[in-house]
């Protein structure tokens, strides 16, 4: 399998929704330690709105699908993660355009555009202890694996692993963006909740791609 279609992307979105809902309490727990105890609720609320929106059927083109996801997140989540994840999906869709499937490089470019969107909105840099610190390694790893000739399935698995590593690496960091930054030194020693949800985002992408290959 060298490309994924809207069905696989729809499956990704649905798996992501299921996973953040299942891990809702954990995400909130992480946000209690260094934020305001709502990241789990925010993501679960947003992704259940997405599921509802898509329940009528998956849009025919990649950009329609991803923009719908983005718009729904923007208008249902609020908080920092709403505009950030919303912008991520909106920009991904804009980069992908009105196609029906994405090959490896297409997917990588779309994810990169999404990441750039998050940076444009939130101005996060590496090491700020945000979702960026899981997402950037994920996107970089995808590029690298594809460049090394890996299969799409292997490449997204590598991206998921890199995102998880990035998430774990937020633990010792002192936050410089988002609510956790108010804690100063006290933010060290905790995982960033947004990095944790982003690791789930990449993990469910790998699972969806693997599922479609199986």
């Amino acid at each position: 399998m060298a490309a994924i279609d809207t069905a696989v992307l729809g499956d990704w979105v649905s798996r992501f929704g299921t996973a953040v809902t299942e891990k809702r309490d954990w995400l909130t727990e992480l946000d209690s330690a260094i934020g305001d105890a709502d990241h789990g609720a925010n993501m679960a609320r947003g992704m259940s709105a997405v599921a509802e929106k898509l329940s009528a059927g998956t849009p025919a083109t990649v950009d329609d699908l991803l923009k719908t996801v983005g718009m729904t997140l923007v208008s249902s989540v609020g908080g920092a993660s709403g505009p950030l994840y919303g912008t991520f999906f909106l920009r991904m869709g804009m980069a992908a355009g009105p196609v029906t499937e994405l090959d490896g490089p297409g997917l990588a470019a779309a994810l990169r555009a999404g990441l750039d969107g998050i940076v444009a909105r939130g101005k996060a840099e590496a090491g700020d202890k945000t979702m960026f610190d899981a997402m950037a390694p994920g996107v970089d790893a995808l590029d690298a694996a594809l460049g090394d000739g890996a299969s799409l399935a292997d490449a997204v698995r590598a991206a998921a692993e890199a995102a998880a590593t990035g998430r774990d690496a937020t633990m010792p960091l002192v936050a410089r963006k988002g609510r956790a930054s108010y804690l100063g030194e006290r933010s060290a020693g905790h995982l960033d909740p947004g990095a944790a949800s982003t690791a789930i985002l990449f993990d469910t992408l790998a699972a969806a791609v693997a599922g479609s290959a199986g």
Partner: protein
Amino acid sequence: MKKLINAPEDVLVESLKGVALAHPELSVDLENHVITRATPKAQGKVAIVSGGGSGHEPLHGGFVGTGMLDAAVAGEVFTSPTPDRVQVATKAVDRGAGVLHIVKNYTGDVLNFEMAAELASMEGIEVGSITVDDDVAVQDSLYTAGRRGVGLTVLLEKIVGAAAEEGRDLAAVVELAKKVNGQGRSMGMALTSCTVPAAGKPTFDLPDDQMEIGIGIHGEPGRHREPLAPASDIARQLVEPILADIDAAGPAIVMLNGMGATPLIELYLMYGEVAAILEKSGVQIARNLVGNYITSLDMAGCSVTVLKADDELLRLWDAPVNTPGLRWGA
């Protein structure tokens, strides 16, 4: 979790229903969580919209009314509202002279109001914006999210609301908002954590003999934890960082604000301590507020806000205001 609620997910809408029933002078859009004046202000005047996560009542919904806000947008508890809802409020109250967005400096609020302003300008509504960042517990820096917006928001909404009511144009109102934001600072502390209904348990654990200094209004733990101290010592710990940050000598408006679960008898006692220190430092308290104005759900604790004032600010402060949370001259 001990709360007067039904299901956690219904808290916001059910509370708004109560607001609607209690205040016929307000209009409550239960679908978009937007509170507006039942009688809009005159055409040609700048409208003021604020909003943010819920759980800070009376802020912001309790400050909608003549002389203060035109609309408040209520997000879920501690979660900023979405851009489309801010836009609903903005459109609803625009009287052709533009709309000021009063935003507390949190990444979520800033991003959502930014997107809302983009939506508004696409529909031809002129939007000005002020980001309130008065919390001296947080260090300001270009490389961080900057200081939080806390207690000063209340004072700013009152003063800017009065200016808009007078008929100042949007540029002048934005200018005034910047002036107020530049001259005011706050600092808060907590005796207990709050409990977010959806989380079901306290956001942080605080032993019986400890307090948090430098908390925000979202149950974020503070900058440091200390042994519980007498009120006079707490007052010093709140006032000193404010005075270290701005030169507040001269007339000032001072607010001693409760975080939600601290009773008035303690707030007045704290006010006495704070006022004594301020007066000793050359701050002359011209006006004051003591009570629960910007809260953090059921957190016990308080915050101090000091706004350096001049005749213009005092005059606008004294102008009539008629809202559920602040009322005088009307």
